[in-house]
């Protein structure tokens, strides 16, 4: 059965693939170009809370999958219908070599730290982001650490192993 949201999205945007996961979870796969448009649309229709932006490294297909988790703040003055609890997982695929995306700060200004985290740990570049400086890590890494091709043990051996112990 197709939920009202599914027809709505398919009618409005082309090549949108909507799949209903388990109860109250809907995943929407869209091309990377139309992200801001859909975010704006979803925000106006009840999905006003951007809970998280995360990223999955599909190294075999050479792609990153960036996932926007949207839900609603459910203000307590309105009654909570079943539709209110719906979580929309907006997914998009971008190439691994030069991951580019438009920043979502224009729509959800709380996306700023999430985008900095993705930039720092995966190397995804968000244009339009005011300051893409490191969020958690102390310094820049050539291969961002969360990528699958980042060899953890070799890196540890190189940086920490090379520090001579202080004798005496």
């Amino acid at each position: 059965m197709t939920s009202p949201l599914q027809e709505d999205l398919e009618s409005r945007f082309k090549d949108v693939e909507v799949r209903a996961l388990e109860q109250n979870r809907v995943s929407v796969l869209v091309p990377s170009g139309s992200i801001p448009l859909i975010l704006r649309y979803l925000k106006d229709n009840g999905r006003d809370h951007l809970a998280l932006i995360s990223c999955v490294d599909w190294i075999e297909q050479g792609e990153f999958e960036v996932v926007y988790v949207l839900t609603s703040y459910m203000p307590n003055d309105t009654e909570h219908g079943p539709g209110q609890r719906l979580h929309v997982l907006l997914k998009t695929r971008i190439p691994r070599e030069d991951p580019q995306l438009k920043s979502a700060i224009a729509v959800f200004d709380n996306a700023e730290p999430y985008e900095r985290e993705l930039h720092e740990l995966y190397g995804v570049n968000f244009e339009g982001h005011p300051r893409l400086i490191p969020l958690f890590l102390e310094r820049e890494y050539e291969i961002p650490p969360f990528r699958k091709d980042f060899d953890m043990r070799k890196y540890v051996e190189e940086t920490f192993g090379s520090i001579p112990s202080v004798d005496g």
Partner: protein
Amino acid sequence: MDRNQITKWLKSPAKMANKYSLHAVYFCTGCGIIEIPPVITSRWDAERFGVLPVATPRQGNLFMITGYVSLKTLRAIIRTYEQMPDPKYTVGFGSCPINGGMYWDSYNTIKHLDKYIPVDGWIAGCMPRPEAVFIGVTHLWTLIDKGKADGYVRYKKNYAAYRRNQELILGKIDWPPLYP
């Protein structure tokens, strides 16, 4: 516990006073800090041994590093260690400061703390219980007695090596070196 032996007091008051008045500056890194409150409150009461938490490193002489040390925290640990007055002792809690512990292959944590600041005593355990902390303190007493708790002397002697290691791992350090 030879606190009430007057002869020892008369012979070496500074050493005895350092043993029985360890004012602790503890650095709440990682998971270890949850063990400190029971140590200093009614259940195990560290104050009967003279161990008292103090607010600033300027007032303390025992430096407890409780838990794994990330790159960012190392910068603050070095700064705090350098701000403590001279006869100072460092105790590492748990296995993470010893050899990286369960984060042995993590890109963001320091593996061997004693490459960057001198450590006088280790307390093993993936977060040592308060009894282990007291055993550590008593060992520290014996070390002070034997004069082996000389972390601050080693820091001053090999300061160049320590500083080089710190700059190797942390890149630019913005405060001037302690012993130029």
